[in-house]
Structure formats: structure tokens, C-alpha cells
């Protein structure tokens, strides 16, 4: 149990300011909380205070070692702080304390005693405490501890954790994609396979829809040569501060795993520095230094979309079920979906989920941009956009016109960047106001600003949104079919990338707007959704058919995963086609786009409509024009398959 292993750069605050014992404890507990070692922050803080009540943990020579054993501590951890000016901590020698180590230990065991003992042996050396007080960075602070630990306990210079050699990896990786169903795991698999071929130890953390799995530990991060972050959404990168980190889109992890690993091994990757703020929990710039502006925007957008999706899917399917179980009453077409109590229940609950869609979208976009302070501002902005509040509607009582999802997107980005600007401005305020920034200044000023902003732009966006819907509604005959072709074709251009998501957001956005407004089934909005889904279902289906009917054109591995694509396609998980598209993009993608476009166009032409945003074959029961929709899908899949078969050569002839 080494002290450096319990401590981490982001749990060290140097040159911190605190006015009394209470604010020091707040500061230290905040640092401790950041690394997720506490299950209940309040309970832990209470335990620290209970311990202080018995007798102060301030010892002597300016050193204090607050500590608590608690059930709320998940794993042992240290936090440290050096204050600019010592505070009265009730130390035994009556001197002010300025060097703090906060120990968090699980309730069972004598671990905290061992930590205390080891720490004390180090702290007895005045040259050690002096060096700590003069440390100019958290890394420096850690290095000093490391050096003195080696010296005091005569440990060997090379500490490649000899007790657990199997737990150290040369390269680490994190994979994540907005939906978190397919890309995340495909990238992880590709990286692991490449590492095996290179004979490199590698561990991959997957941030999928079910939460992070196979989480990288601090020890692993410390001993790794570098970390690959292959992600299209925000992942926790603060823990990688001080290590070489390679930021790439998740697709890179799938396509070029070997190259990425080599870049780490060849030390071509710059060291990542997380923006460090000693006393603030949230940090502004979480993104890597090498990311392009457009990619940053895409990442923020995807953070919003991925958090919004559960609301869209849950709410949408419940609403769809409401229509499915309801009895259509020709006298009251607008009431369809809530005529029977069961339908009304499903529709109400689903509708409630939909109400959160826009605030969550904008809230998480803003949070991606400005971290935690952005969330509240984005959520409020999104809610104002959804309600369409403007100065005119407030003053005159006129009926608000919703700014729709376009307004929510704007609210998210505007809110996020407003908060960044606000934080930048607040940095210029005296440090004595530091404490009230996150609890008072950010929320009050941020929400005020986004409120005024949304009231100004809502009327414009409301008009634009209505104009678009009206325009789409006015598209008849050929142009409607064209729209279907465009939407569906976009779905398979990048299968989960920006084109795909743009089409999908358009489809689900139209669906949500119409459903919220009570538009009856069969409307153009629902037809768009059906076309979008057809476009997303075609690529995996086409590939599955092709592997079955033209096995000579595929390797045995491809043929096996081809079969899985039947299921993926039927469930509307376009991502299943990606390995094929990745290995042979110039043949696979045009074929799929053509097939998807045909399916989308036919679906629109047949007037097939869908009132659920997801579900594939499982929502066929609630569709209008079921058989024709299947026909459209079959035609699209067949076209894509034939094109693919024509373009692809037999394996032996390559």
C-alpha cells in the first residue's frame, strides 16, 4: 500500500485558499468525491466531522490528517491540499495548519491505520513536508511523495507493481459511441484483436449504453504507456491527465486499431493535460487538444442526442402502443390514442417522457460544452424552446409557438457557450467570491441570460420550424418520394455517423412534434419516420442476404457475422453493417445507400407511416401499410444486395 498509489493528481489542491476548518474539509471532501470513491458524500463528510469532534486531527508543524472510515467509502483513497495561508485547525501545538491529507478508508479493516502510519513516517521528515509545500504542480507533488517513499522504505526504483503483474497494461483504451450498442464494442474488439497480433497487453473500457464496463483503474492508468480514447461522445478524461492520450473518433478504433496502438508505443502522442482548477469541481475544457472545431461540435451534439434517445425511444414506443391498443373513434380523430383508459395511460406516460426530450437534449449539449454548470442552463433553455416562450407571449398572453428541436439545439449550444463565457468572466472576480460561483452566480446569471436569449430567438425559430413542417407537408407526389429517398439514403452513408444521425434526428424530431401536437397516424411526419427506419434497416439486411446468397464473395468470418446481420437489420441496428462497410467502403457504402434510398422512396410512395422512433420489425404491428413497407424493405435490400454482389469480386479472384 503505497501513498502515491492512493493519491492522484486531480485529488491534490496546491495553493488553495480556505478561511476556516469547515471550508478546508469541504475542499478536501470535494477533491475526494471527484474520483468516485464515495458512494455517499454527505455520509462521508459527516464521518470526517464525527472524527474531528472526538479530537482534532491537526497534529503539529502545520500538518493535519483528517480521516474517516465509513461504509460510504468504496475503496481507500487520499486527497491532499496545501493552503496558501494556514487555518486554525485545533492542532496540538496550537499552530495554524496548511498541509492536509484526507484519508478515506472502507469501514472494515485496519487499512487507515497502515496509511496513517506510513504517512506519518514520511511526514516526520521536515525536508519532505518542505518539498511538498514548495511543489509547483500536482505531478510534482506526487513525484516528491514517490521519491521519499522509495527512500524511506527502501523500495526498488522500478515499481511495475510486482505483486500484480497481470494487472498492468502497456496500452489502455476507452471506446464510446452515442448510442452505445454497436460501435463501442466493435472498436473494443478491433483494438483487442490488434493488440493480440502485436503481442501487446491492452485493456479496453467500453462506455456503452449500459454504463462503463471494464473500467480502467488508477494503477493501470499510471503504469500504462498511453491511452487511446476512441469516442464520439464525452468520456471521463480527467483521470488521464499527465499521460499521453490519443483522441480519435470511434470509427478509427474500428478501422485502424493497429495504427493507434503503434502511435502510443512509438511515443507519437502528446501528453494530455486536463485543465486543472484546484478548488473547482467542474472543469471547462474536457476535450482533447487535437480535436477539430467541427468534431467538437459533433461531440457536443452527440452528447445531447445520446442522452435524449432513451426518452425518445421509451416515450415513442409507449405512445405507439397507446395507438396500437386504442379503439379508433371516427367522431373524435384527435382523441385517438387516449380513448380507452389503458391507451390514455400509455399515451400520458409516453408524452411525459417526450416532454423531457428537448430539455435533456439541450441540457446535455450545454453540459458537454461547459461541464456541470452548463446542465441547468441548457435544460432551462431547452424547456423554454420547447414551450416557445417569448417576450411577446409573456406580455400579451398570446399562445406560444414551440421552437421545436431546432430551438433546443440552439439553446444547448448557446447555453453551453454562454456558461463558458460566464466562467471566464467570473475568473476575473476576487477569489473571495470563489465559493458562491457554482452555487449562486453560475445558476442565477446563466439561467437569466439563457432565458432572455431564448425569449428573443424563440419567435424566429418557431416560425422556421413551422415553415419546415409546412414545407414538408406541402411536398406531394414526386418530391415526397424524393424526401424519403434522401432521408433513407443518408441513414446508410455513415451508419451511425453525422449523416445517419441527422436523418434520424429529423425523423424522430418530426415524429415527436407531430405526436406532441396530437397529429393522427398517417401524416407526413410519421411517413418520414418510416422512411428513416427503412433506410437504417436495409444495410444489415442487404449484407446478410449477400453473405447467404453469394458466400464466395466473403471470408468465413464475414459469412458468420453476416448471419447476425439478419437480426441486426430487423431490429434497425444499422451498425451491424459497419464491419463490412469498413473493410470495403467503396463497394459497400454506395450499394447500401442506393438500396436504402429505394426503400425510403418506396415507403414514402406507399404512404407507410410509423409512430415509434425505433423498434424495427417489432413495431411493424403498429405501422400503417405493413405489407407495402415489407415490400419496400425487401426491394431496397434486394437492390443493395445485387449491387454489392456485382461490385464485389469473389474472394479467390481478389
Amino acid at each position: 500500500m503505497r501513498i502515491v498509489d492512493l493519491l492522484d493528481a486531480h485529488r491534490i489542491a496546491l495553493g488553495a485558499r480556505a478561511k476556516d476548518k469547515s471550508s478546508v474539509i469541504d475542499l478536501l471532501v470535494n477533491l475526494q468525491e471527484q474520483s468516485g470513491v464515495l458512494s455517499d458524500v454527505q455520509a462521508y463528510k459527516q464521518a470526517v466531522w464525527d472524527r474531528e469532534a472526538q479530537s482534532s486531527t491537526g497534529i503539529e508543524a502545520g500538518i493535519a490528517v483528517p480521516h474517516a472510515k465509513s461504509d460510504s467509502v468504496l475503496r481507500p483513497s487520499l486527497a491532499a491540499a496545501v493552503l496558501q495561508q494556514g487555518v486554525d485547525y485545533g492542532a496540538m501545538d496550537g499552530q495554524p495548519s496548511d498541509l492536509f491529507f484526507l484519508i478515506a478508508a472502507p469501514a472494515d479493516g485496519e487499512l487507515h491505520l497502515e496509511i496513517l502510519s506510513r504517512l506519518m513516517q514520511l511526514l516526520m521528515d521536515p525536508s519532505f513536508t518542505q518539498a511538498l509545500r514548495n511543489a509547483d504542480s500536482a505531478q510534482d507533488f506526487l513525484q516528491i511523495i514517490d521519491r521519499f517513499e522509495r527512500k524511506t522504505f527502501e523500495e526498488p526504483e522500478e515499481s511495475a507493481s510486482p505483486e500484480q503483474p497481470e494487472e498492468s497494461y502497456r496500452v489502455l483504451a476507452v471506446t464510446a459511441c452515442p448510442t452505445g450498442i454497436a460501435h463501442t464494442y466493435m472498436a473494443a474488439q478491433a483494438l483487442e484483436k490488434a493488440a493480440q497480433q502485436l503481442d501487446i497487453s491492452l485493456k479496453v473500457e467500453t462506455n456503452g449504453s449500459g454504463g462503463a464496463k471494464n473500467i480502467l483503474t488508477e494503477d493501470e492508468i499510471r503504469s500504462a504507456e498511453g491511452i487511446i480514447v476512441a469516442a464520439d461522445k464525452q468520456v471521463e478524461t480527467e483521470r488521464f491527465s499527465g499521460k499521453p492520450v490519443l483522441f480519435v473518433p470511434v470509427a478509427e478504433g474500428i478501422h485502424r486499431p493497429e495504427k493507434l496502438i503503434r502511435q502510443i508505443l512509438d511515443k507519437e502522442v502528446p501528453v494530455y493535460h486536463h485543465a486543472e482548477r484546484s478548488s473547482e469541481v467542474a472543469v471547462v475544457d474536457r476535450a482533447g487538444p487535437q480535436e477539430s472545431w467541427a468534431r467538437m461540435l459533433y461531440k457536443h451534439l452527440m452528447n445531447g442526442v445520446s442522452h435524449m434517445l432513451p426518452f425518445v425511444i421509451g416515450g415513442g414506443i409507449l405512445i405507439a402502443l397507446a395507438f396500437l391498443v386504442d379503439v379508433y373513434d371516427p367522431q373524435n380523430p384527435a382523441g385517438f390514442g387516449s380513448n380507452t383508459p389503458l391507451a390514455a395511460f400509455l399515451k400520458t406516460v409516453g408524452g411525459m417522457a417526450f416532454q423531457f426530450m428537448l430539455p435533456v437534449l439541450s441540457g446535455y449539449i450545454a453540459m458537454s460544452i461547459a461541464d456541470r454548470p452548463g446542465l441547468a442552463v441548457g435544460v432551462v433553455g431547452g424547456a423554454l424552446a420547447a414551450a416557445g416562450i417569448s417576450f411577446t407571449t409573456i406580455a400579451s398572453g398570446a399562445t406560444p409557438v414551440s421552437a421545436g428541436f431546432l430551438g433546443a439545439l440552439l439553446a444547448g449550444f448557446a447555453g453551453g457557450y454562454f456558461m463558458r463565457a460566464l466562467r471566464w468572466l467570473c475568473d476575473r472576480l476576487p477569489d473571495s467570491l470563489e465559493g458562491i460561483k457554482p452555487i449562486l452566480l453560475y445558476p442565477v446569471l446563466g439561467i437569466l441570460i439563457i432565458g432572455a436569449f431564448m425569449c428573443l430567438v424563440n419567435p424566429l425559430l418557431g416560425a422556421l420550424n413551422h415553415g419546415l413542417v409546412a414545407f414538408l407537408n406541402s411536398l406531394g407526389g414526386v418530391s415526397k418520394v424524393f424526401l424519403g429517398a434522401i432521408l433513407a439514403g443518408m441513414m446508410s452513408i455513415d451508419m451511425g455517423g453525422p449523416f445517419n444521425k441527422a436523418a434520424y434526428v429529423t425523423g424522430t424530431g418530426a415524429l415527436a412534434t407531430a405526436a406532441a401536437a396530437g397529429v393522427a397516424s398517417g401524416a407526413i411526419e410519421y411517413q418520414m419516420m418510416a422512411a428513416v427506419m427503412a433506410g437504417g434497416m436495409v444495410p444489415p439486411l442487404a449484407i446478410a442476404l449477400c453473405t447467404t446468397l453469394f458466400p464466395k464473395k466473403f471470408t468465413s468470418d464475414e459469412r458468420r457475422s453476416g448471419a447476425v446481420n439478419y437480426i441486426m437489420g430487423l431490429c434497425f441496428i444499422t451498425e451491424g453493417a459497419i464491419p463490412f462497410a469498413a473493410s470495403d467502403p467503396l463497394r459497400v457504402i454506395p450499394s447500401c445507400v442506393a438500396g436504402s434510398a429505394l426503400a425510403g422512396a418506396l415507403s414514402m410512395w406507399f404512404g407507410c407511416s410509423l409512430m415509434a422512433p425505433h423498434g424495427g420489425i417489432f413495431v411493424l404491428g403498429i405501422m400503417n401499410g405493413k405489407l407495402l413497407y415489407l415490400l419496400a424493405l425487401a426491394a431496397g435490400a434486394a437492390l443493395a444486395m445485387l449491387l454489392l454482389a456485382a461490385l464485389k469480386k469473389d474472394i479467390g479472384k481478389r
Partner: protein
Amino acid sequence: MVSANVKVTNPMGLHMRPAQLFVREMTPFASEVTIVHKDRTINAKSIMNLMASGIKQGSEIEIRCEGQDEQAALEKAVALIESGLGE
């Protein structure tokens, strides 16, 4: 110099709170107070030294006192350790 052997009874050993109590109670004595534990000699009037020693429950320690009030100091120290230092 006088000395005595005692066994630490605190469930968690001489962690910070009992160590603080021990140091506070022993400070008024003029004698030098040292504890010998696992061949190490510890200044028992320094909280840091005491805690750094990491003395656990069941440890046999030798308390040594040297000075004009060494007998009283030793009796006090033994009584403190044997009483479990308030635990």
C-alpha cells in the same frame, strides 16, 4: 531509567486519537518517554513518531521513562495503555 512491558489493547491499535490522548497526558511529565516496539525506539511524546510506529492491537511494547519523575510517568503511561486509552 525505569521500564515496563505492556500489551496494547485498543481494537485499532495506537491510531491518531489514542496517540493524541497519550501524548497529551504524558507531556506534563519532565521525563523522557520512549516506546520500544519491534526493535525501534520511538519518542512517545511526539504524536507523529507515535503514529508513524503503527502499533497495532496485541503488540507488546516496552515503555521507558527517564528523568526526575520517571516513576510517576511510567505508572501513568502503563495505566493509559492498559486502560485502552478511552476505547
